[in-house]
């Protein structure tokens, strides 16, 4: 039998017993508290089906194995990786020790024992490195989005102490037993030299004292789990696994025929998955770093929305939840699948049901219900823009192969109309047979839903679904990413499943098939602003770039934040009707990013982004030097 050691050396029997009792008691209390929390979560309102567990397990493994969202921020990835793997090793070692000791499965001897000691020692070291990195970022505040919170700092120092006493303990044991040849626990062995000068008689006593401190710290660690960020050990993986189906930022569709009122005016009115997500938040601040409203100085911070709700003591203020642009960046960025946008929508629903909306928002909502567009323009004028374009307007019941969904901006807003005209012209040039709903089209309800008017959304959705079903379209084509998102993803929960395509995807296909050919253009340097609903919401990032590549002479310069990481234009989430100053500032932030690429044309693929960036350009006095255009408008110039 090679080298081994007696587990719990130097610890008298009754103390061992006390330790086992104490630790099990702590563990019991913790498990009980966590169970109580879980029960409180289960008391939440119902939510959509979980579904796709296989996919979720994969997501979790990817995250755990270190290639997931945490690693989008390499520092955070390294820090978390060190803590996670270090902790896992220590945890496994403790289990192995306990097994060996209690179940008398003797396997820790010889080279297994040596390797085991080395691995545990290095694992502990890794754990401490991770803790030190975390401590550095919380204290130095050099990574600005990571909040500097005292509780987090205290917790990290405590964890360092737990790990540190473990190492000292190992050193004391080596010194006390003069096992100097046991160099394999490298760090413990090095620390043993600290005890060299201590007289041999007092070493066992010192060891026992250290051991007691360590065990008590471990007990405290158990007890702290439910009350600190440590609870994410349980809740974050659960949240990743149990998030209801659908992409981030997708609000739950409540069954309005039930007796409950929609929205949340107290935490108890959130759904179980929303309640679970509150527990899962690790206060890492990643969502804050990407939130456009925060960047523009609005009082909104997605993390504090989550944390305020979690604390259950105070309520999120209207100034916070009305500043959100529904860009979905927070949900996309969160490493543990928390969805602050969903919470914002629940809070807005609560406010709307309580009648607490600003007068101009109320006007927009009433207009949506009455006229089917947020501007309150007559429905009879919805098809005026295309009167002289020779397009086919569908009569009731007429089947349609390709149905072009125009949306309110395309129908009423001059900038949107210009996009819609470009799309029509391209389709006609390519010989695509398509038809429009004309005055029978209504707003998809997107602004109503983002503004928290779920009843109005469902009302419009039902009308539109019935209208669309009446034509059984093979494909619904739209140039508005907001309509695209709702038609494609959000109508299905109300019984309307359609094949929906964004005009960038459709036009890219026409180019590929050679049905559209570009020959000339007046653009050179351009940059592309990804609309949130298109890139983050639906992952359409390549199609618009393919289109731009087909514009002769055009050279695409990407902004630093592009594709799924793009910064919002400030116009989503009903901001067009909320008229908040922060929304305008967001558009300026984004325009400045675009200008910094030296591009002379800012291309985009959303009528809202187009309006927002165009007014930002005017506000900057840059309308002469940068033009804001939809990709369809650029393409139409290139093919004519």
């Amino acid at each position, binding site marked *: 039998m090679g080298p081994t050691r007696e587990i719990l050396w130097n610890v008298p029997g009754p103390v061992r017993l006390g330790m086992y009792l104490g630790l099990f008691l702590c563990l019991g209390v913790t498990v009980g508290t966590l169970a109580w929390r879980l029960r409180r979560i289960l008391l939440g309102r119902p939510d959509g089906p979980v579904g796709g567990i296989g996919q979720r397990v994969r997501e979790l493994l990817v995250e755990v194995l270190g290639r997931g969202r945490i690693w989008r921020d390499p520092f955070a990835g390294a820090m978390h990786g060190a803590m996670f793997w270090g902790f896992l090793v220590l945890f496994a070692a403790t289990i192995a020790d306990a097994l060996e000791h209690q179940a008398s499965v003797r396997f820790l001897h010889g080279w297994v024992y040596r390797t085991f000691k080395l691995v545990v020692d290095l694992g502990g070291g890794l754990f401490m490195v991770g803790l030190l990195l975390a401590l550095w970022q919380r204290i130095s505040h050099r990574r600005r989005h990571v909040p500097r919170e005292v509780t987090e700092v205290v917790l990290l120092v405590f964890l360092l102490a737990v790990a540190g006493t473990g190492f000292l303990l190992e050193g004391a044991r080596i010194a006390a037993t003069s096992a100097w040849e046991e160099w394999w626990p490298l760090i413990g062995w090095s620390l043993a030299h600290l005890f060299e000068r201590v007289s041999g008689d007092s070493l066992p006593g010192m060891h026992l004292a250290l051991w007691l401190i360590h065990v008590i710290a471990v007990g405290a660690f158990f007890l702290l789990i439910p009350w600190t960020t440590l609870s994410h050990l349980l809740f974050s993986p659960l949240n990743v696994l149990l998030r209801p189906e659908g992409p981030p930022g997708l609000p739950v569709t409540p069954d309005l025929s039930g007796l409950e009122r929609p929205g949340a005016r107290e935490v108890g009115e959130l759904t179980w998955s929303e309640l679970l997500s509150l527990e899962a938040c690790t206060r890492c601040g990643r969502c804050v770093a990407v939130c456009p409203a925060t960047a523009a100085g609005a009082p909104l911070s997605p993390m504090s929305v989550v944390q305020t709700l979690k604390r259950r003591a105070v309520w999120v203020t209207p100034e916070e939840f009305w500043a959100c642009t529904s860009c979905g960046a927070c949900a996309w960025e969160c490493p543990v699948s928390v969805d602050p946008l969903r919470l914002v929508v629940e809070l807005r629903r609560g406010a709307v*049901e309580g009648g607490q909306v600003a007068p101009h928002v109320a006007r927009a909502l009433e207009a949506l*219900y*009455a006229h089917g567009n947020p501007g309150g323009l007559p429905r009879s004028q919805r098809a005026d823009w295309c009167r002289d374009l020779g397009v086919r307007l569908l009569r009731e019941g007429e089947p349609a192969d390709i149905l072009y969904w125009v949306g309110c901006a395309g129908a009423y807003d001059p900038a949107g109309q210009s996009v819609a005209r470009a799309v029509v012209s391209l389709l006609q040039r390519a010989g695509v047979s398509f038809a429009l709903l004309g005055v029978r089209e209504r707003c998809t309800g997107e602004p109503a839903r983002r503004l928290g008017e779920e009843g109005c959304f469902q009302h419009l959705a039902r009308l539109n679904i019935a209208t669309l079903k009446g034509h059984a379209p093979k494909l619904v084509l739209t140039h508005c990413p907001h309509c695209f998102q709702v038609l494609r993803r959000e109508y299905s929960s109300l019984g309307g499943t359609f094949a929906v395509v964004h005009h960038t995807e459709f036009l890219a296909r026409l180019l590929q098939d050679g049905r559209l050919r570009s020959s000339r253009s007046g653009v050179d340097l351009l940059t592309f602003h990804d609309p949130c609903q298109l890139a983050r919401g639906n992952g359409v990032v390549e199609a618009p770039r393919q289109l731009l590549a087909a514009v002769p002479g055009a050279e695409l310069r990407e902004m630093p934040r592009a594709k799924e990481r793009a910064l919002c234009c400030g116009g989503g989430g009903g901001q067009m009707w909320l008229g908040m100053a922060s929304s305008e500032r967001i558009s300026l932030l984004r325009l400045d990013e675009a200008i910094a690429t030296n591009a002379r044309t800012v291309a985009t693929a959303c009528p809202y982004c187009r*309006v927002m960036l165009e007014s930002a350009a005017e506000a900057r006095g840059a309308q002469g030097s940068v033009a804001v255009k939809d990709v369809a408008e650029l393409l139409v110039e290139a093919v004519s």
Partner: protein
Amino acid sequence: MRIAVCLKQVPDAASTLVIDHATMRVVQAEPEPVYALNPPDRSALEVALRLVGRHGGTVTAVTLGPSESEAVLIQALARGADGAVHLVGREEPDAPAKAALLSQVLRDLAPDLILLGDRSQDAGDGQVSAWLAEALALPLVAGCVGVKVEGSVVVAERNLGRGYRQVVTCPLPAVVAVETGAADPCYVSVYARSRVSAGRVRRVAADLRGLGEDDATAVRVLGVGPRRIRPKRLPAPDPRLAAADRLQLALQGGVSERKGRLVSGTDSDVVKEIVAFLQEEGILTT
């Protein structure tokens, strides 16, 4: 305190209106007609609910009109009214006849205060409140922009135009007609409206034949035509306006422009420039 509020459903102001020469009425040229609660009536409802909120009591909403006008009562109930009475009638009678029909219901309700909008957005003759007060032999305070109740009197603030206000008191019961500005209406969600059971509306047939000779009116409509259109110049959108405002401007052609000019120089130069500016803008005419 018992309050009755008279509400009227009107065609939504944003819809496209055309004249039906056969009936000499203004009708909507929309895929489907769009209705709204008459804006000053909505303020009247809000005033009533706030008074009851402060002093206690009940609010009963009353409307006169065809079956689709029940929507305004549903809206009132969703907003917090305690009861609703629908006088169902197809024909739109004139003001005295309307007042006579309403007075039958109101006499039964015997409210302490009757609130209604000063004039309707469609017919707009503003007579119903006066005829109603006459029919019920109650005092009338019209054109109110603020209503308070102190003991058994109502203290009303009346709009005299040009920024003038008059404060009057009047013993209850009384008829008080308010303007749109009397209270900011509260948003009533679609969901809240969908939760109101139609059974809460008491329906009464409006019977014009039961009315006496006196209530018939001498007014006849001779013709209906569009108003003379005064062309309005739309300024190019000011780039300093918020995008939301400019969108509104483009969509509706009317958001007031935020503009200004800074003048500097000696006092007399400044005065001259200001006077010149006021003349340019047509504010000073001499």
